[in-house]
Structure formats: C-alpha cells, structure tokens
C-alpha cells in the first residue's frame, strides 16, 4: 500500500539483514581494541551482549569491560537475564553486603559439587565455611608448607628425569616442557589430596574426579560426566569416611612426626548442632575444596610464569630477590590476569545503583576481572608490573579490601565469602614457583611452541582464565 511504502521498505531491509538475530561471530581485534558495536546519538558506545559468548571476548575481554565500567556500571544484559557490576568500589560494596547480596544462585554448584556453603549466607555460611576453612589458614597452614614443598620437589624431579613424553622433550643441553601438563595441572590437586588425607594411590583417580567435576559445572555439555564423577567420588569417600570415623588419620612432617589430623578425619569428628556431619555433607565439602583448590592455583601458576617470562626485566629482579618478590608477582598476576572471573549474587532487596533499578532476586554478576582493571583504583591497569605501588601485596587480608591506602586484588573476592582456600593457594603457587625457579636453569619461554595471537606472530593473550599451554625451556647443564 502506497501510504505504508516506507514502512514496508524498512521491514524488507530487516528481513534481508545479514545479522541472524542470535549468536554471531565477531571479528577478532588487536588486543586492547573493541569491535565497533555502534554508538548512541551522544557518542556513547553501545554494547552487544552476544559478545560475552564470543571467541573475541574470551581472548580480549578487558577493553569490553572498560566500556561497561565507563558507560554502564550496572549493565542489564537482557539476553542472558543478568546484571553486571564492573567497578571496583561497587564490587567490594556488594561483596561485603552479606544481607543484600547474599549468595550465589542456589543450585549452580549443587549440580555437581553438592550442597556447599557457597549457597548459604550469614551465620549458616560462616559455620560451614569454618568447618574446613580453619585448617587452611594460620598455624594449620604453616604446618603443611613443608609437605607442599616436598610435593613440588617430587613432581619436578619426576619430570626432570622423564624423556619422550608429549610434554617433556629432551634436546640434549636443553629441555622443553609444557608446564601445565608436567606440573601446574596436577600439583594443586595433589596438595589438596594430601591435605584432605587421601591415600596416595587414590591421587590419580582424584585428578579424574577433579577434571570431570570442573568441566561438568553449570549445565555444560559434560554435565553428566561431572555428575558421574561426583557419584564416583561419593562412593569412594563413603568408605573412607567410615574408615576415618573408626580410625583417625594423621598428617606427618618429613621426619615422620605427627603434625595434626587430616581434614577428613577432622570433618568426621565435627558436630553441627549436636549432630555429626553426614557422609554427603563431608563429600560436598571435599568436592568444593577439590574444585576451588585446583583451578585457581593451576591458573595462577601458569599465568604468573607466562607474564613473568614476557617481562624479563621483572623476572630478573625477582630472581635477584626471590624471598620478597614472589608474593608481589603472585598478587600482581591475580590482579592482571586472574583465573577466576567473578562471583554471581542474588540481591535480597530491590536495589538502585547508578540510576538502575534492579528487582529483588536478580542475578548480579560481580566481575572481579573488571574490578581488578578499574583505573579508578589501579594506574595503567592493563600493564603487568610486580612493583606497582597501588596494589596491596602483603599478607592476604582476611576480610578487608584495602590496607595502608592500597587496594587488594579481587581474585579471591572479599568479605564474608572470601575464598577460604586463598592462603593455601598462595602458598602452593609461591612455594611451587620458588622451587621451579631454583631448580631449573636459565628458564625461558619456548616461543615457537606457544599459541599465537591472530597475527600469527605475537604470543596469545591470556584473556579469560588462563593461557591454554605454557611451553618453557631450560638448560640441563
């Protein structure tokens, strides 16, 4: 009809648009630059939520988070029914508000991990968290450091003696090793296994449980495999728990001296409201320790070495003063390239933030990645600098986010849900790396084997979580 010709033409244009209306493939941009997603009439960049599931975002997330921080501090992603909180100050405020933003969505961990304290808040959360968290800090942790060091030395010696494996290549005077397969993937799991009190013969099986459960979280395609692993773990733990209930097991130092009971034994002896913990509750706690203690430390070790070896001046300074500098390297790594992106929360009440009304019960994603790169807090946040003076790099803060005028990174969260495994993760990464650095001579990146970026020449960025492979070479003589 003539009077509606312009309308019909606009419809035609949309019908013949190349945008399929669902997930699309975004072009890969140079690191630090974004795809042009359009602008509003005042020049403000628009944000397409489909970018979150794109390859481009996974390799180059930080410039997109900058758009959110600067223009949409509370971003309502209507496609995924999620609100994103991206500024440092907002994230810590929400983390500390245990009443207003109390837990992760119920069920998000229970699919595989079981009932854990992640889904609880307030006193219930604190009580359950402390059941095992107390064994991972302070004096309890100090007692376990020698065994962490021993495990690291054993693993390094094992692969240093290996030849002809896909991840250890002997070239005479030098060796090439993929650090993930040779060390970082398994080291944290072995530590957790030992701390929990699993027999050494179960450690390989433990690695399978860990991998399967991690990949089966959140309704993924390997969800069934995750549930099967969880069931297998539960079957195994059931016998172990019954045995520990009858016969406690102890951790010993290198001289064979008893330094305390293992965590499973302690959990078996624990009472809540007059009742002993059930086997399922113990299994869920174990599953959570396994999941939390593995991926974060694995990512931290790999990312830390990748970043350090790309900054040889900083690595040289570290080698000159390793006792004081590894802690700095660890914290700056977790600020710059944390293996954990953030934590989801449900808001208990209606919330108004930055002019955005968020109804109660909404999913609010606290983006630690973005908070750690907030230039309102950290100068030149994309730069890796272990000597930066605006990052708190001392002993991990138990509850605060700031000390002596410097902010901590958000990689472990802050507030009541601060990761209870943060301290042991720190010890594992730092002690393991310290031993690596002392043991391996002239360690450096094997750049020809490393994954490359889109230009085919530059090293691939870490992006979300961690670099998939880390090939190193070192001298044998």
């Amino acid at each position: 009809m003539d009077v509606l010709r312009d309308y019909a033409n606009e419809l035609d244009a949309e019908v013949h648009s190349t945008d399929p209306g669902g997930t699309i493939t975004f072009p890969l941009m140079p690191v630090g630059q974004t795809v042009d997603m359009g602008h509003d009439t005042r020049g403000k960049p628009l944000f397409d939520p489909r970018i979150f599931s794109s390859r481009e975002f996974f390799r180059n997330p930080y410039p997109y988070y900058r758009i959110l921080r600067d223009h949409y501090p509370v971003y309502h992603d209507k496609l995924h029914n999620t609100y994103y909180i991206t500024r440092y100050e907002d994230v810590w405020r929400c983390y500390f508000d245990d009443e207003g933003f109390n837990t992760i969505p119920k069920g998000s961990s229970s699919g595989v991990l079981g009932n854990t304290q992640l889904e609880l808040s307030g006193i219930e959360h604190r009580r359950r968290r402390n059941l095992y968290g107390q064994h991972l800090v302070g004096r309890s942790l100090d007692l376990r450091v020698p065994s962490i060091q021993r495990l690291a030395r054993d693993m390094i010696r094992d692969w240093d003696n290996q030849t002809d494996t896909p991840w250890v290549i002997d070239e005479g005077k030098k060796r090439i090793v993929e650090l993930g397969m040779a060390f970082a993937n398994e080291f944290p799991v072995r530590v957790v296994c030992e701390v929990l009190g699993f027999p050494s013969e179960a450690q390989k099986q433990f690695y399978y449980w860990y991998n399967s459960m991690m990949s089966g979280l959140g309704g993924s395609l390997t969800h069934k495999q995750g549930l099967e692993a969880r069931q297998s773990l539960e079957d195994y733990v059931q016998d172990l728990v019954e045995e520990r209930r009858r016969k406690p097991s102890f951790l010993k130092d290198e001289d064979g001296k008893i330094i305390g009971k293992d965590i499973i034994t302690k959990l078996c002896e624990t009472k809540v409201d007059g009742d002993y913990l059930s086997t399922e509750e113990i299994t869920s706690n174990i599953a959570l320790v396994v999941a939390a203690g593995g991926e974060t430390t694995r990512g931290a070790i790999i990312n830390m070495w990748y970043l350090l070896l790309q900054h040889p001046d900083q690595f040289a300074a570290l080698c000159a003063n390793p006792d004081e500098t590894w802690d700095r390297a660890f914290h700056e790594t977790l600020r710059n390239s944390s293996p954990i992106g953030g934590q989801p929360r449900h808001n208990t009440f209606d919330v108004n933030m930055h002019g955005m009304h968020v109804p109660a019960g909404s999913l609010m994603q606290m983006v630690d990645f973005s908070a750690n790169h907030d230039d309102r807090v950290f100068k030149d946040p994309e730069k890796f600098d272990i000597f930066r003076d605006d990052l708190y790099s001392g002993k991990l803060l138990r509850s605060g986010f700031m000390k002596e005028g410097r902010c901590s990174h958000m990689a472990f969260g802050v507030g009541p849900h601060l990761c209870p495994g943060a301290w042991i993760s720190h010890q594992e990464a730092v002690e393991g790396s310290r031993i690596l650095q002392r043991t391996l001579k002239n360690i450096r990146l094997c750049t020809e084997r490393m994954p490359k970026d889109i230009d085919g020449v530059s090293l691939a960025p870490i992006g979300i979580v961690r670099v998939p492979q880390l090939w190193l070479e070192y001298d044998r003589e």
Partner: protein
Amino acid sequence: MNAPVTTGDAPATDDVVIGDNGVAIPRFNHGGTGWRSYEVHQRERVGESTEKINGAQLASAEYAADPYPLLAILRENYPCYRDWINNCYWITRYDDVTSIFTDEANFENRSKLWYYGIEGFGRDLREELPVLWAWSKAMDAFAETDTQRLIEGFRKGVTDLARDFAAQLPILLLGRMFEVPDTELAPFAIRYRRAQRGVLWHPTAQETGKGALLELLQYFEPKLRQVGNSDTSVLAAIAGLGGTAADVVTTLLEADHETLHGALGNLWMNLLSQPGALHVVKSDRLAMKIAYLEAMRHSPPVITSERFARHEVERFGKLIPEGGLLRVSALAANRDPRIFNDSDQFIADRRDICHREARGHYRADGLPQGIAFGMGRPTRHPAVPEDRPRSLYALTRDTAVTASWTLAQKLPGIALEPGFVPTMRCLRIGEVFTCWQLPVAY
C-alpha cells in the same frame, strides 16, 4: 567515597572503619550482618543430567531460525530446564505452561516499560472500559474495509502477503484507533515498530526504540488536544479519561501489533502450504475461525512469554528463587503430543482443539483438549457481560478471521508463487516468530 549502592532495607552508608591493622572494612559489615536461613535443596543425580542440550543453543541463530527441534528436546527430556547460560527456567509442556499462566499468585509478568527501565513513564489504559470499547468498535468496523483497501493496493495478479497484508493491516487499524491520517501513517508505523523492538536485548534496537518513544510522545502531545469524537477513536477515549501523551504511548507500547501481524502471516503460510487447507476454509467463515485457532496452535507467533517468580517457590521439582525468570513456551506446549494428536501437523479442520474461548479455564467443558493460547492468556471475563466488550485476545482473533475471510473471498484463486518454499523465523531472539515473505499469485 560515593555511596552507589542502596538497598531497600539494608543500611545505606559510605562509612568505612579502619581497623588497628589498617584494614578497611565497611561499617555496615562491622560486627556482622544480618543473615537469612535457606532450605538447602538436594543436588542433582546422574540421571538428571541435561547433556542433550546446552543453554547457548537457546540463544543461537539456529534457535531464531527454527526453535521447534530445540524446544522439543526440552519438552520431551527436561520439562523444567534450568538454563545457566541465559539464567532462566524453560517450561515447555502443555499442562505446565497453563499452570504457570494461570498462577498469578506466584508468577508475574513485567511491563514493557520495565524492560525499558522507565517504569512510571505513563499508564497502560487498555483495561479501561471506554478504551476497550473504542478498541473493539474500531476493530469490528474496519477489519473488513481496511483489508479491502489493502487488496486494492496489491500489484495486479501478484503480491507478498506477509509484507503487504499481514504486516500492514495492524498498522492501518492502529491508525484508525489513534487518529493517524494516511499521510502520517508510515512514519508512525516505523516509530511504533522501533519502539516495540527496543524492549528487547539488541543495543541498536534499544537505542532507536528510546528515540522512537520520544518521537511518538511529541507526535501525540498536540494530537491529544484536538481529538475527534468518533466512538472508534481510542485516542479520544484516552483523552476523555484525562490521559496524557505518555499514557497514549504507554498504551500503544503495551498493546503491540506484532501478534496480529504474526498470526495473519502464520495462518496464511499454513493455508497456502498445506494441500487442501485453503479449500476447507473458503466456503465457511466458521471453518476460517477453526483454521485460525489451529494456526495459533501449530505456529503461534510468540515463542515464549516471560514470567518472574514473585517469591521463592518450588515447582516441577525445582526450587525457583524469588525473581527467577521462567520462559514459558506456548509454542512448545501447543506441539505437546500428550495433548494434541499429530501435533506437528497443521490440520485446518482439526477436531481435538477447543473452538471457543474457555470459561476461565484452559480446558473447555465437554471438549477433550485445551485451547491454543498462541495469543496469550484469554480474558478473565469469559462470560462477557453486556457492559463489557470482548477481550483483546478475542478481538484479535475475530479481526484476523474477518480479514482472512475477506481475503479468501476477494482472491479466490490465490496460490503460492510456484517454487517458493515459505518459512517462519524470528528476526532476532525474543521477537515475533512469523513468515516474513509469502509471495502469491491470484
């Protein structure tokens, strides 16, 4: 520091306590916070894994192009599917869908103004009787004549029914109701459609939608001061209620035109694609109505409706948290083989479907199967007292039937362009699911 976070009952403070060790702790957490007790629900078991589908598929181009296979996987395997990617629950079986639609105590729908983030912008006056009367009189008065106008505008012998009929009739009718002259109809239609599309997730659509809302506001401000007195003018009815231009725009926005657009497109695609279907409806107006209902069952233009849990509620074996989003799929439910025989087949004279609006229930008395609720929930006033017009649901149905009957009578030899295979799709996830191209010869 500023205090960007304020919560309904939680203390809003920007005070920070610096402890003896120099650690900063927000004052409102100092000494502990309040707490809330949860029922911790059971974990999932191996048999409850959901590996046959992934949430990412439900936001994919594949889903926009053809949602039926994916929704069938959900309906037959995971009737209440917890989608972690899109943060929602998918409800896909007929009985479950109807139970949610009728459960207003536990589930709410949210206005389009909420999606825009401008709640309070204006009032939706569609339920006001003067507005509803004007609406019904306009639909009844102009459905046939405006269809004839469209037919007269077709190119001789050929046309695209999707574009030149299904997409345009709702606009012509809205123009009548809101006193938009022909000369201003195209810009009105463009703004109106942009405003509708801005409700959803696409950033460009959101931006142009906001602009279109403002333009519509400016357009109706002067018009509201010089409304006519026709009993088919919704604009005049709103003015009579003391409504503002924002009320007009809000009423328009909440009404939408795309369900009628999609219903007409999908009905005619089915009629023209199924051998013999057109023949069934040509001779009997009642048969056209039954075919329309069947089209709404077989190919409803709305894939899912969104409902939010008013409070924590356990349904379908899941603990749905307060604020939890349910994507309730009429499209999947209408293909539920537990309810309809040969549910994937379009049968113009289908017998196992309710042929009249149920009296407050989804299963009409004496009829074996439920109605097709492709157009949303029927009226809560099914008996239609004399002082009350039919519901918008019924008006849309009757308008579509009248227009389609008129078209079938005026163009008796209508047939699909040879070789053309029509399809339905969404232009974007969440938008109307319809046939966008339907070239015919007559």
